[in-house]
């Protein structure tokens, strides 16, 4: 649910200003390595996934993202008096498949529950969710970080409906407090959500941030393979809340945790965990105590700020939803759904390891970059595994980092990467020119082939043009020419470089080399 907007805006704003000006919490953080040397971090992750069903959780309205405000609404998702919810069977099916893929037990019988609280973007002023009877519970999954496998316990996966969206106009913070007025869009109201909650993740030590990122990456890939969600973090179809607590050692009881919201990219998951560990360690070391609270992640400044205190927990007055009948999935159906599951992540990893022939180190880098899906799709589009790995981990990764987005949001598709590699393979461009093609594709100039044409990036392998450039290089470097003639063929590299420079990188290096040796031989 969108509790993320429900914070004390003044407190959050002040905290953010303090953090930005180097006062308050930011001053108290300790370097990460010191923090994890002194404390044992424990994580908990709550992930909200918007399902990709065509219609909403409890009515027939469309779920298409980005429509005109309040055009995808009906009496039920507007919470009009007298309206009633009816469960979307496909959403239940997706929930069960997610549960099964996370090795959960699927409830024989479970109910929806009402979570009661007042907020204008929640039309009924209660959210239909699940409380003590989740559809899936007690599962596990595995995450590989730097070659080490962490087993992560899944507490539960339950079904609920999304809220509408508030847009606060005027005021300084963009939050409801201080706004001149607010606009409400109920298109998202009632979109099916699955909330997946881990058990406390212990024993990760210094790798906690990478484990957190690895888990969300794994989950994203799994959900995509299940074809149950678009898992677009930037569109909010996968939203992550990160719980972090510290304790002196693994033998100690769990410390007080904070829940950081708005962590909506893989990179942010890692950064937010890292920051929270440093911040909490600073507080604890200074003799302070951790407040149980909601915190907000600020992508730009890389800090979390205090939100609503959870010590006086809001009472949601949960009770079984009387408008809906219990859900009792038959064992037969559950087993049928089990048969539709994609390859489990661990099996898949084994398969690609043997198919792609990557070294352990290469594979490790691929996983930690979250590039497994992208590489698989690029290979499927015709590229070799090594070339796919190279592009995703160098050109695309660098640009994604610069933009502060995840790999797949960098603006290049696996099909385009495969096309670029094909252009290299057929000699149209070389690796160096390929970088400019990436720039063009990301800038929206068209397909790789179109970019090559429009930017005039084709390699020159025309002997006539090359021959002139080679002659000039030979004339300008008599001493190198002598070396080559004396048998030091490797000295040709320097000449090739000069030719390339003269041809602005568009020369076919192999052809240049051949020409040099021919002219001198």
């Amino acid at each position, binding site marked *: 649910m969108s509790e993320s907007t429900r914070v004390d805006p003044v407190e959050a704003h002040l905290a953010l200003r303090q953090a930005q000006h180097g006062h308050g919490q930011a001053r108290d953080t300790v370097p990460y390595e010191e923090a994890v040397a002194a404390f044992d971090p424990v994580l908990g992750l709550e992930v909200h996934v918007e399902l990709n069903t065509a219609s909403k959780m409890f009515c027939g309205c469309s779920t298409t993202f980005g429509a005109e405000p309040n055009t995808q609404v009906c*009496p039920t998702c507007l919470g*009009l*008096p*007298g309206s009633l919810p009816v469960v979307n069977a496909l959403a239940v099916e997706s929930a069960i498949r997610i549960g099964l893929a996370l090795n959960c037990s699927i409830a024989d019988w479970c109910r929806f529950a009402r979570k009661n609280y007042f907020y204008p973007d929640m039309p009924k002023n209660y959210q239909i969710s699940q409380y003590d009877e989740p559809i899936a519970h007690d599962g596990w999954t595995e995450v590989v970080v730097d070659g080490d496998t962490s087993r992560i316990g899944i507490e539960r996966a339950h079904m609920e409906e999304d809220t509408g969206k508030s847009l606060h106009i005027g005021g300084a913070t963009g939050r409801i407090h201080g706004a001149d007025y607010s606009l409400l869009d109920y298109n998202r109201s009632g979109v099916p959500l699955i909330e997946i909650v881990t058990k406390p993740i212990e024993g990760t030590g210094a790798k906690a941030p990478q484990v957190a990122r690895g888990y969300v990456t794994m989950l994203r890939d799994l959900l995509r393979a299940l074809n149950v969600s678009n898992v677009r973090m930037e569109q909010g179809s996968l939203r992550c809340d990160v719980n972090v607590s510290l304790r002196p050692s693994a033998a100690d009881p769990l410390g007080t945790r904070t829940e950081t919201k708005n962590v909506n990219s893989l990179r942010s998951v890692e950064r937010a965990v890292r920051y929270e560990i440093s911040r909490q360690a600073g507080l604890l070391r200074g003799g302070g105590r951790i407040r149980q609270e909601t915190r907000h992640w600020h992508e730009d400044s890389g800090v979390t700020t205090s939100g609503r205190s959870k010590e006086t927990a809001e009472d949601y007055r949960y*009770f079984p939803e009387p408008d809906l*009948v219990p859900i009792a999935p038959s064992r037969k159906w559950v087993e049928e759904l089990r048969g539709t599951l994609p390859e489990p992540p661990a099996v898949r990893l084994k398969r690609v390891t043997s198919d792609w022939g990557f070294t352990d180190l290469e594979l490790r880098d691929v996983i930690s970059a979250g590039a497994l899906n992208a590489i698989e799709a690029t290979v499927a589009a015709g590229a070799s595994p090594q070339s796919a790995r190279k592009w995703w981990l160098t050109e695309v990764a660098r640009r994604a980092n610069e933009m502060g987005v995840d790999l797949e949001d960098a603006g290049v598709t696996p099909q385009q990467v495969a096309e670029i590699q094909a252009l290299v393979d057929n000699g149209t461009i070389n690796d160096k020119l390929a970088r400019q093609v990436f720039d063009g594709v990301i800038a929206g100039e068209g397909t790789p082939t179109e970019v090559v044409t429009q930017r005039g990036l084709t390699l020159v392998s025309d002997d006539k043009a090359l021959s002139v450039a080679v002659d000039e290089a030979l004339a300008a470097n008599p001493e190198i020419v002598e070396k080559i003639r004396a048998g030091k063929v490797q000295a040709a590299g320097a000449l090739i470089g000069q030719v390339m420079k003269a041809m602005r990188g568009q020369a076919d290096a192999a052809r240049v080399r051949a020409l040099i040796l021919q002219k001198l031989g």
Partner: protein
Amino acid sequence: MNEILRTTAVELAAKIKARELSSVEVIHAHLERIAAVDPDVHAFLHIDGERALQTATRIDTKIAHGEHVGPLAGVPLALKDVLTYAGAPTTCGSKILAGWIPPYDATVTRRLLDADVVIVGKTNMDEFAMGSSTENSAFGPTHNPWALDRIPGGSGGGSAASLAAFEVPLAVGTDTGGSIRQPASVTGTVGVKPTYGGTSRYGLVALASSLDQPGPCARTVLDAATLHAVIAGHDPLDSTSIDAPVPDVLGAARSGDVAGMKIGVVTELRGEGYAPGVEQRFGEAVELLSTLGAEIIEVPCPHFVYALPAYYLILPAECSSNLAKFDAMRFGLRVGDDGEASAEQVMAATREAGFGAEVKRRIIIGTYALSSGYYDAYYGQAQKVRTLISRDFERAFATVDVLVSPSTPTTAFKIGEKVDDPLAMYLNDLCTIPSNLAGNASASFPVGLAPEDGLPVGLQVMAPPLADDRLYRVGAALERTLVGQWGGSLLDRVPELTVVG
């Protein structure tokens, strides 16, 4: 009084279909009656006369062209103002919904319209169906046509009074703890709460979702059964709707044969607190059923005594959540929106101004009952009692076909008599509440006037889930014999109402 007004719905439909009467003249007659007597009775909150006449004209044309029409085609009906009818206001008897025109029809409304029934207006009720006297309506009480200084029951007092005042031959009510049956009992009319899930709740503004059920209100058993058959049946828009054939209520209402039927008299629903006239008429009716060949058995239902306290935890709990949507954000009343106030302040001011005392009382009780730390002791415990009451019914229905009791402990009381005593008011629903908690079918049928005050007494019949037909079998048996004994319908004895103007 125009003879049309005393004609039953089934007869009116037959005459309209045979073109002995036009629907337009039938609707006219009833609209005139409403105009004449409703200033005194105040059964209606909204009269949709123009649209009713347009509908009637269309139905007359259909009949003239030999087109197929529904079983109650052209007959007027009053809809309790808790069911949506697109284009007409729905207030639920509350100021907070002032000005709200629903954009959609309740399933019950849709079925009525599809069956060519003519909806003439929306009837008064206790605010959000909370009450047993219609005195909690924000728009003033309805008066009992038997004695205008008395209550017509509640929450559906408007629907029952509109029947007893001959303003309409048919009405639809909703029953959460007796809101159809108790008004029927104190107005001498027939009211049926179908099996939970037998009629759709879609478009019924929820009081307590697990208890609410729309049902037919009429002056005769056959009219009620005919209306029941029109509005009942599975609705995919209501998840709690039962996907099963509608019991043969029409066949049962026509048969009225109770020979060999085992009828249980509930031990706990009589004795202390029951008016002598109520006990007397109830006893006579049971005796009559015995004469007609039914086997009468005394049946204990020991947990029924806990029904009232359990109900007054479950209902407030659900209503505290159901009524949260009335927040001024999207529809209805908005108070305090001065451009400075926050959304929360506007919500609070609107709810403070828009809800009446009884609604606030139940929201507060329900909020408390669901609170962390109290849930198990209140809501949780009440749900256990609910299960025990269901088991009482199951045990009883293992040996008898139906259970009977008085519908209410007393006849209609005076307006104002109990407004300051919520507990006394709640006791009105002592007999009717168990059926809502268990979800079984239940009805109230008139069995005479109490000798001490000359006011109607009702007998309640309770049948197992999806055995709604048994209610009509018993009701028809009583009606057939009693109308003979009375020398005509009980409602013929309703005093002439002052005709205004």
